[in-house]
């Protein structure tokens, strides 16, 4: 169904205002291809209907979703291979030693974006743990648009080429049209929800490992401190924090101690950190 020019102009105006992206006439096909998944997510099959839905004052999140959908995303799978290797070879065995076998491992992907980190962890854990142990991964992000793609688990050919080992591609994905879809079995282990790191969090379980990679850089020092304190409160007392390879807690939060685990630097609450009495989720 071809997009009407009034609808196209609305979208072009919107992305120009919000993201300084210029959509010339001739890019209708791009708008159709990127907005159809968003439309389906809210139960519309017609682009025009969906755009009218997004225009309603109350549907600001849909307008944001449209802007995000038309901004290119550059995320890889298994980004920073050394981190995943360190997690697999060093951190995970330590965790498994200290957790009862019936207790699911809980991991938080705290800047989940379109979901590649969360699903990469899910693939790694499926391979390492087999059926004997369970795990749960929670992916959060402030942006509903990227979470919509993460939940859908649908990726373009170009996104699939970014750092995904071929053996994982054949095992955990299936082709659908021009794109690829995450296996529903894998999706069952991963959930996504909206969360603003700079605001108080609630409703999160106790995590064994938190991945908070390359997102603290967007905040000022005092917000970084608040975030790290809140993150520490969601972690098991011997839980681990993983930051981006160029990041550190030093100078921000002295309650964390770092440990080198192979190619991975991970942080734990230091023994001297005061015990945080928090509600069990």
């Amino acid at each position, binding site marked *: 169904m071809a997009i009407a020019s009034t609808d196209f102009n609305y979208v072009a105006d919107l992305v120009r205002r919000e993201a300084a992206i210029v959509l010339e006439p001739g890019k209708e096909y791009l708008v159709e291809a990127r907005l159809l998944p968003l439309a389906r997510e809210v139960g519309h099959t017609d682009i025009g209907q969906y755009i009218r839905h997004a225009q309603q004052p109350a549907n600001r999140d849909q307008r944001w979703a449209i802007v995000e959908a038309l901004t290119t995303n550059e995320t*890889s799978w*298994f980004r920073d*291979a050394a981190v995943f290797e360190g997690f697999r070879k060093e951190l995970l065995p330590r965790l498994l030693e200290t957790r009862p076998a019936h207790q699911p491992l809980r991991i938080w992907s705290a800047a989940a974006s379109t979901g590649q980190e969360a699903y990469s962890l899910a693939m790694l854990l499926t391979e390492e743990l087999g059926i004997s142990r369970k795990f749960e991964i929670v992916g959060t992000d402030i942006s509903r648009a990227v979470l919509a793609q993460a939940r859908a688990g649908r990726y373009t*050919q*170009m996104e*699939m*080429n*970014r*750092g995904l*080992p*071929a*053996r994982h*591609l*054949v095992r955990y*994905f*299936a*082709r659908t049209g021009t794109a690829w879809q995450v296996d529903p079995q894998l999706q069952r282990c991963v959930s996504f929800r909206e969360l603003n790191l700079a605001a108080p969090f609630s409703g999160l379980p106790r995590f064994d490992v938190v991945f908070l990679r390359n997102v603290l850089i967007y905040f000022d020092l005092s917000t970084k401190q608040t975030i790290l304190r809140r993150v520490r409160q969601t972690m098991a007392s011997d839980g681990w924090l993983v930051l981006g390879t160029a990041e550190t807690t030093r100078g921000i939060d002295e309650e964390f101690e770092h440990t080198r685990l192979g190619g991975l630097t991970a942080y734990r609450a230091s023994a001297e950190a005061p015990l945080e009495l928090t509600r069990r989720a």
Partner: protein
Amino acid sequence: MTVQAIVIDDSSAMRMILRRIVTKLGFEVDEAVDGRDALDKLNAAEQVPDVALIDWNMPEMNGLEFIQAVRSDPRYSRLTLLMVTTESEQSQIVRALAAGAHEYLIKPFTPDAVAEKLEILGLTAGV
């Protein structure tokens, strides 16, 4: 010791594109026009290259046949095999991996995608 790559594709356009990308990554690049040509080059070479980037559909000997030939020859056991092809069906990728390809890249691809695949294979310049 520079990493040695060989690009095997019957399309001169694709050979040129991959040569440019892989050279920029710091590798030395040789070329072959199909599987048969590549095997002849391997046989004649003093040193087996580190990695082969292999198209699937080629005359004389296609990529799958080349991979099978290499994997059954102990002389070439250190050659890493990266398939680079338009074939994108799951069953084809499974076939390639089963035949002995170490990794698989679907066309079209960006230079970043090639770099990341080579990293997965543990191949970076100067190693």
